[in-house]
């Protein structure tokens, strides 16, 4: 081994304490890249394979009822590669173990070849449909697992007002329900409350009165059609409008796909931003170490040059420090990344269902991570290397010019300065004289604290979102969907159900809302006068009364349609008479999930040309009588779906605890490494540079705590300056995040509480103080008798 390499290794070993922190920060950066990148790739590849193999559709058109001939006309269009018609119904299930009725979505599938059909299903357990019986059902795997249903069990369904027993012949997963949610309003899958049931095509049509008809068309497009999917759907809407087009969904808006897509794009962003931040900080800290190394090895550099080492050789030698540090950081990072990816894939398995979703090592990502880490290491070493390079051998031989002495600006404030004591003087002078070092410290502290702040604010925002949507806006205990629109009489009947303390009607009407060229199809919710179980709210949380005329839109919807209160929008129901009306926007409310619009129930019914219709009910229920209500609902023929809000809240809260707390915890620890590492690093450098000064103080009779106090003061000054910057920086980060997550599916409210600020300061101070403990131990173990002999 060339002797300079040996020197390099020994120099590295000698400064291992300071380098470890850089290596740790680099390791986290590379780890984030490898871990997030690996998760992203595995998720993406699993999705692509799954979609291709099971022919995931490009569009869904849900209809009131359309004849087969209509679908055949659509199938003949050149951009349609293939399509399939089916029957889709939400049903109430009688699951033996469940205390409450469960909502299921019934989908018809071909009795043979269901794996190869569009939106094919992948059988997990069981043998699938037989030829003997019609009453067979295949359940979504997660749903069966959640309820302990085994293949061979029997299940009762109420179909077309007839209660029928089905035999479970298999469990399956499907590309349509990788993320098992009912629709865009659902945030988190809950297989105890929602599952998909696949029944034989022919049988479903017969039982549900859809002979030669369907209520959903789904299909795949040619590559050209895929590029113009919105335009295709608009034309399909015109073709199929006589049959009541309830919804037109391109793949990009399909609920499961959207969640998966958002997760993937979030991963892609994190896999760039996180490593960027950590590697940049590591490079900054390394930069300081290298400048110091260059200063300390000034004579060695001169000697090497005088001996005849070329600039290139000396450069490569010093660059070697950065490269080795980058390499070590990169290797740690690969390890961290593998662990992170394995943990993330484990977490994703709870939410996403794929036929094959296995963790695998991605050597190329590890190699790239390693190279990037090495590049940042070299970047961090660059200024030190340039300092070495600029050094002329003759100049390097001369003793180092004395460090800049003199006064700092603060000393002009005599009365303040005199009050501070000499140890604070030493700390202040050192902070102001080593500007690059201090600024790096300030920046690292600010960044670390800002990341912690962001993590905590994200948690608060999530909690706020859940509270806003599921406590403040929806205030009911149980929501009950009805099969068809019912009259006021149904409401009166419902009030007689056991345990019901209050019942309010809702009318959901799917409409096209258009303003200029912008349009959206969504269900407008009609609320009765005096409603209290659904309480739309403004951004500040104040409830908004729904006026007797006009529409109240949620902020995001108004933004998408580009309308303000007072503007007129075109409203066209997708079924019934489908007359276009121009209605005023009379209010705006906030919402963080999906897109909503509200209107007075009577007003909405009037627009449809009906009077006092309703299609779902909201209940406030006496907690003691819930079981009675559930029993009663099960035998209610008009009931189609039921939602127990307490379960929804509990599920979301549980998931929030399970996943957010972990990821936020990881983020805080990662940021803590920056705060801890950069503080410790500059203190260790300080000790190294000032051995003689600190030793002299010890000889004079100062105790280790008093000497360490100088360094602690210095660290504290830098940390406090960092804190001042941290919150503006943190605010920029969270508002950026809120902007990034301002999507149709969900939005992140920006919730900044004063105690979150305090918590952040507490956390960041904790990491900083931890570093100071080590500083104190270093000072205590300082060999000060040797230290006073050190030549400076």
């Amino acid at each position, binding site marked *: 081994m060339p*002797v300079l390499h040996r020197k390099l290794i020994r120099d590295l070993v000698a400064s291992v304490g300071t380098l470890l922190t850089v290596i740790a920060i680099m390791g986290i950066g590379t780890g984030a890249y490898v871990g997030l990148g690996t998760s992203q790739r595995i998720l993406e590849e699993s999705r692509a394979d799954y979609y291709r193999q099971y022919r995931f559709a490009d569009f869904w058109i849900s209809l009131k009822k359309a004849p087969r001939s209509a679908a055949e006309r659509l199938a003949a269009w050149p951009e349609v590669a293939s399509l399939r018609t089916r029957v889709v119904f939400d049903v109430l299930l009688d699951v033996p173990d469940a205390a409450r009725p469960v909502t299921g979505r019934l989908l018809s599938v071909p009795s043979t070849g269901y794996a190869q059909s569009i939106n094919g299903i992948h059988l997990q357990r069981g043998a699938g449909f037989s030829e003997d019986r019609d009453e067979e059902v295949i359940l979504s795997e997660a749903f069966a697992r959640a309820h302990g249903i085994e293949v061979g069990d029997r299940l009762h369904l109420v179909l077309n007002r007839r209660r029928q027993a089905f035999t479970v012949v298999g469990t399956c997963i499907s590309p349509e329900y990788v993320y098992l949610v009912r629709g865009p309003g659902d945030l988190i899958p809950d297989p105890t409350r929602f599952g998909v049931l696949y029944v034989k095509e022919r049988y479903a049509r017969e039982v549900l009165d859809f002979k030669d008809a369907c209520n959903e068309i789904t299909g795949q497009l040619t590559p050209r059609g895929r590029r113009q999917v919105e335009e295709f759907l608009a034309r399909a809407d015109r073709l199929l409008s006589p049959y009541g087009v309830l919804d037109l969904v391109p793949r990009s808006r399909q609920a499961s796909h959207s969640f998966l897509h958002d997760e993937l794009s979030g991963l892609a962003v994190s896999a760039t931003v996180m490593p960027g931040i950590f590697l940049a900080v590591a490079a900054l800290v390394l930069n300081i170490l290298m400048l110091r190394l260059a200063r300390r090895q000034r004579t060695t550099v001169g000697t090497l040059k005088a*001996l*005849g080492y*070329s600039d290139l050789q000396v450069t490569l030698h010093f660059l070697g420090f950065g490269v080795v540090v980058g390499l070590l950081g990169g290797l740690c990072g690969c390890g961290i990344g593998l662990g992170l990816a394995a943990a993330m894939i484990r977490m994703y398995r709870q939410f996403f269902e794929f036929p094959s979703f296995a963790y695998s090592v991605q050597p190329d990502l590890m190699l790239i991570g390693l190279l990037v880490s090495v590049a940042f290491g070299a970047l961090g070493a660059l200024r030190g290397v340039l300092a070495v390079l600029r050094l*002329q051998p003759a100049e390097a*031989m001369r003793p180092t010019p004395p460090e800049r002495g003199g006064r700092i600006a603060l000393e002009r404030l005599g009365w303040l300065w005199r009050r501070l004591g000499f140890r604070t003087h030493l700390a202040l002078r050192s902070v102001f004289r080593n500007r690059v070092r201090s600024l790096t410290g300030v920046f690292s502290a600010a960044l670390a604290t800002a990341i912690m702040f962001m993590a905590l604010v994200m948690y608060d925002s999530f909690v706020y979102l859940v509270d806003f949507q599921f406590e403040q806006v929806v205030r009911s205990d149980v929501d009950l969907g009805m099969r068809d629109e019912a009259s006021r009489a149904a409401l009166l009947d419902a009030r007689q159900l056991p345990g019901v303390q209050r019942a309010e009607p809702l009318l959901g009407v799917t409409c096209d809302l258009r303003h200029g060229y912008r349009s959206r199809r969504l269900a407008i919710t009609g609320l009765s006068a005096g409603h209290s179980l659904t309480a739309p709210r403004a951004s500040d949380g104040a409830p908004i009364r729904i006026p007797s005329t006009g529409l109240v839109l949620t902020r995001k919807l108004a933004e998408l349609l580009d309308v303000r209160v007072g503007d007129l929008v075109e409203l066209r129901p997708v079924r019934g008479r489908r007359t276009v009306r121009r209605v005023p926007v009379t209010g705006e409310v906030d919402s963080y999930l999906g897109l909503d619009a509200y209107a007075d129930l009577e007003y909405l019914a009037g627009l449809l040309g009906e009077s006092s219709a309703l299609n779902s009910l909201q209940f406030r229920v006496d907690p003691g009588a819930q079981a009675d209500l559930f029993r009663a609902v099960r035998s209610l023929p008009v009931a189609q779906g039921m939602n127990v809000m307490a379960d929804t809240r509990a599920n979301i809260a549980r998931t929030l605890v399970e996943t957010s707390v972990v990821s936020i915890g990881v983020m805080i620890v990662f940021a803590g490494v920056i705060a801890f590492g950069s503080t410790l690093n500059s203190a260790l450098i300080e000790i190294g540079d000032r051995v003689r000064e600190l030793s002299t103080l010890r000889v004079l009779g100062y105790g280790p705590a008093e000497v360490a106090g100088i360094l602690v003061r210095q660290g504290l000054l830098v940390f406090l300056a960092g804190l001042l910057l941290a919150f503006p920086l943190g605010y920029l980060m969270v508002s950026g995040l809120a902007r990034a997550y301002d999507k149709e599916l969900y939005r992140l409210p920006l919730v900044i509480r004063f105690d979150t600020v305090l918590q952040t300061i507490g956390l960041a101070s904790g990491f900083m103080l931890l570093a100071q403990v080590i500083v104190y131990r270093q000072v205590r173990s300082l060999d000060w008798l040797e230290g006073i002999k050190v030549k400076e």
Partner: protein
Amino acid sequence: MSETDPILRLEGAGRTFRMGEVEVTALAEADLAIRSGEFLAILGPSGSGKSTLLNLVGGTDRPTTGHVWFGDTDLAAMRDHELTLYRRRVVGFIFQFYNLVPTLTAEENVQVATELVGDPLAPAAALELVGLSSRASHFPAQLSGGEQQRVAIARAIAKRPRILLADEPTGALDLVTARQVLSILQGLNRREGLTILLITHNPALADIAGRVVRLASGRLADTRENPNPIDASDVTW
């Protein structure tokens, strides 16, 4: 040792430094020929321009005026990489404070030089020449000042340089140790015919050289031939 061909020739070589607004002349235009195989002492008080002259000869600096001829090439006109090659192949440096790499052993410090050239002395052989074979695996911190300087000499000669430049080599040593170090230098000159340029502020040391050039305030004050140099072991101050 009576070769008279100059190995190096300063021709009106001067060096000025800019210190802010003022221009300081470290070395006024100097003419000097260094003969191959001679032991030349440059004597002068601190600030007289000794080190500047050494830097010009050693290729660690360039003159601002005049020329430094090595054979028929002018160091003043050399580019950086040519100067590097010059230092690598022609010159051996010995410094007042030894300038050993603290994290390398004695032998490894010599290797730092030997790895640079094609046909070096073996590091062990170089250490033997300075009587330090037994200390080869010691780190600088484990060696006395004299021993460190001997390692530095071993490092300088291991490259088989054409000229050895010693800048106050005994400046940090006591008399007894200084004699050892000087004896090694004198031996190298006498036995191997190595050209040596010794820079010192101590007149007592100059007596071991065959020729003494005195510098004062950046100028060559006088040159004295010393046909009968004393033995290094007889040096005293």
